[in-house]
């Protein structure tokens, strides 16, 4: 790809970017959110066809007008946002847009067989006739990967493919990547995770603010240098955690249960008890499906009254009924899917920021736009939010900035307890660092924080204590000093581990 330029309604997103890929190599594309990585690969994959510059596949110049045109030439993209249709079956999704037919009729049996075969080769043995929405996010991502892997791909682009995968699934994926390399595929891999970059990359290209910064071989490349290319500044500590003075117990959960309505006798959350003090960060580790998100959701009231157990906030009894009551009681929940249920995309930054605390900005029901804007501006400043204006709809912001708006919304409610579910998912390095600083500041103020994260280094660095969940139960508890990656992983997989 040569001298690629692209603009969206007047805003320049890519300027003069060049990129090349050899067959049989894994070329990592790195950079902060908003650097232009997604746009670049969408141009390659045929999603956008209005750009300037040249693309050559081997010797021939190409210009794709549609995704199927790119697919026909052997280019396949696995997007960050899943492109699966929930109510349709797994097999139907895998062949979506490329259905096999016998004459005029759909050849459903052969598609089902092939889909199943492909999934098994990825280590996934599931019922391909069930709707995709039935499966957890991690499995859905594997299905998405399976969908994109056609029989003869020349180029495969993976955009943050492991964000929802568990450790074993990640390993499987890396195995597939190895196989594809040996077959001569060229792989473009976009990720934020440092370990992945160094594990997979043959070469690394860094984009920043729509420009090409550098391309280098991965072997021998300094971590600090890479970060510097990406953010343009030196980041000495990736995970600074300043321990705050811990105070009284703010959140106490005892014998908390959420029954699983779809499976008799099973529990989504099974007899969980824990405590969090003011100024403390409690990390919760676990594989996908262990019930971590459900635990936080249950405390927040998303399961209504169909939960059992006792919850005390600052010593007072609390019954989860609905999110509205939880917010009133001083709990804030930052969900792991901001697009799905964290932000109202059409609304602007101000409106999203004040959404959970709107009664405070509307005495007698009358809105006070000026005070809303003032509060949002204050938040934007303290969170270092990068946006052209607070009037922008949040859908036009980068992932990291979107996450900051969600954070602003919850901080605005002045919470006593912050439940964070994957707060740095899909967020670039610079913004991640800022969020860690914020978490420090919050705990200094005396807020009790519960942190769910699937990034082990983040978990180990930021948590004061760690509990591990497996199939709805707590299987282990570690202090900051005694926790190690291996022990946590073992406990997450259900094995008994000494503290």
């Amino acid at each position, binding site marked *: 790809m040569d001298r690629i330029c692209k603009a969206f*309604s007047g805003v320049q997103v890519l300027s003069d970017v060049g990129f090349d890929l050899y067959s049989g190599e894994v070329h990592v594309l790195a950079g902060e959110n908003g650097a232009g990585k997604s746009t670049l690969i969408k141009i390659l994959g045929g999603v956008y066809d209005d750009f300037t510059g040249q693309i050559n596949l081997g010797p021939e110049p190409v210009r794709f007008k549609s995704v199927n045109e790119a697919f026909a030439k052997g280019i396949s993209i696995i997007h960050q946002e899943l492109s699966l249709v929930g109510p349709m079956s797994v097999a139907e999704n895998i062949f979506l847009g490329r259905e096999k037919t016998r004459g005029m009729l759909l050849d459903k049996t052969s598609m089902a067989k092939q889909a199943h075969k492909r999934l098994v080769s990825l280590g996934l043995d599931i019922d391909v006739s069930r709707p995709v929405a039935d499966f957890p996010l991690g499995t859905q991502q594997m299905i998405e990967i399976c969908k994109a892997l056609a029989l003869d791909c020349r180029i495969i682009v993976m955009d943050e493919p492991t964000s929802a995968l568990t450790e074993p699934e990640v390993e499987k994926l890396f195995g597939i990547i190895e196989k594809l390399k040996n077959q001569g595929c060229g792989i473009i891999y976009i990720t934020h995770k440092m370990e992945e970059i160094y594990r997979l990359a043959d070469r690394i290209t860094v984009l920043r603010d729509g420009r090409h910064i550098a391309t280098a071989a991965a072997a021998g490349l300094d971590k600090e240098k890479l970060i510097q290319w990406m953010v343009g500044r030196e980041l000495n500590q990736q995970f600074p955690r300043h321990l705050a003075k811990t105070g009284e117990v703010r959140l106490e959960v005892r014998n908390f249960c959420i029954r699983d309505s779809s499976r008799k006798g099973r529990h989504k959350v099974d007899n969980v008890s824990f405590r969090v003090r003011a100024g403390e960060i409690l990390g919760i580790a676990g594989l996908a499906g262990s019930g971590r998100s459900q635990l936080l959701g249950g405390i927040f009231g*998303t399961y209504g009254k169909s939960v059992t157990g006792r919850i005390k906030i600052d010593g007072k009894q609390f019954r989860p009924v609905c999110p509205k009551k939880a917010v009133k009681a001083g709990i804030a929940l930052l969900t792991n899917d901001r697009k*799905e249920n964290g932000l109202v995309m*059409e609304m602007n930054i101000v409106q999203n920021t004040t*959404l959970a605390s709107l009664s405070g900005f509307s005495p007698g029901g009358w*809105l006070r736009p000026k005070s809303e804007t003032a509060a949002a501006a204050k938040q934007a400043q303290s969170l270092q939010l990068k946006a052209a204006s607070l009037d922008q709809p949040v859908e036009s912001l980068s992932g990291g900035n979107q996450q900051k708006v969600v954070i602003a919304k919850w901080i605005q409610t002045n919470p006593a307890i912050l439940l964070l579910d994957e707060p740095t998912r899909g967020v670039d390095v610079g913004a991640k660092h800022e969020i860690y600083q914020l978490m420090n500041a919050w705990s200094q103020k005396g807020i009790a924080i519960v942190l769910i994260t699937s990034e082990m280094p983040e978990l180990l660095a930021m948590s004061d204590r760690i509990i591990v969940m497996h199939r709805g139960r707590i299987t282990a508890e570690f202090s900051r000093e005694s926790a190690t990656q291996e022990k946590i992983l073992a406990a997450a997989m259900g094995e008994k581990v000494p503290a």
Partner: protein
Amino acid sequence: MIYENAQSKIRIARWLYSPTARALGALVVVFVLGLAFNADGAFFNWSTHRDMLRAVSVYGILACGMTLVIITGGIDLSVGSILALTAVSFSLLTIHRGISAPLAIVLCLLIGAACGVGSGLLIARFSIQPFIATLAMMVFARGLGKLISGGQKISTAVQLPDGNYSYVEAPQIFTFLNSKVAGDNISVVTLVFLVCLIISWILLTKLRPGRYIYAIGGNEAAARLSGVPVSAVKTLAYGLSGLFCAIAGICQASQELQGDPEAGVAYELSAIAMVVIGGTSLRGGRGGIWLTLLGVLTIGYLEKILSINAVGEDKRLMLTGAIIIAAVLFQKTRK
């Protein structure tokens, strides 16, 4: 200098893409059609425009409530039936029972609001899809209207015990709502429509429930998880829609000088068309009341132009359908 010119050019270009500009564009096109096909100059008389506004006001009032409901991501198919129910109730109360106008109005507003709240509870509490819930209310309200009216129009003709009919004077409220003010230049029902527009505007832009309505339409899951009282706000939206239907029903009865249980059939389709042509998306979360006004005027003028040119029924239907599609496609230009 050049930079400033470029900036303002970009601002103008951005505005031209906005929903308001596109709805305005559709209206301007229809207006120009009126200028061209002006039916021997009838289009240049103020009376033509005043009458168009009168005729479209009842639909416009329905469209106000429909706007609220559509922004929450729902739909209300029962507006025509509630209009008939309240038209019949209003006539019964004032003509046959002699109840005073203010009391009758309040009772009818309560009836309309109750129907709306009923739909809203079905949708919010029992999670029934808006299409189905309001369809059921549409059928139920129509039946209820026929029941209390005995299937007959409630007019100033009162049946005496011997089976014959005598007629009574129409109550003052009827003649008032049916009349014109400001030197015969604007109909009272048009002013009622204007008031309904302003009430909707205040709710949607200046009050907290209005913000919640947009949030629920934009992303209901996010709204719920932000502590927004989703059930209450949805019920409010449908209840207000019912209230607006009652206002429309009272205006309809006054203009017909009778309460007709068959009134309002298919009015919901016109109301929806007006909201959609105005640019409020059926998906919810976007739109506004002034866009609906543009949609109301567009359809109102279209029908008036076809009417003064005495266009045959068959051509009328086809032209209206084609222009609705054209207006919506025009709305869909690339972002």
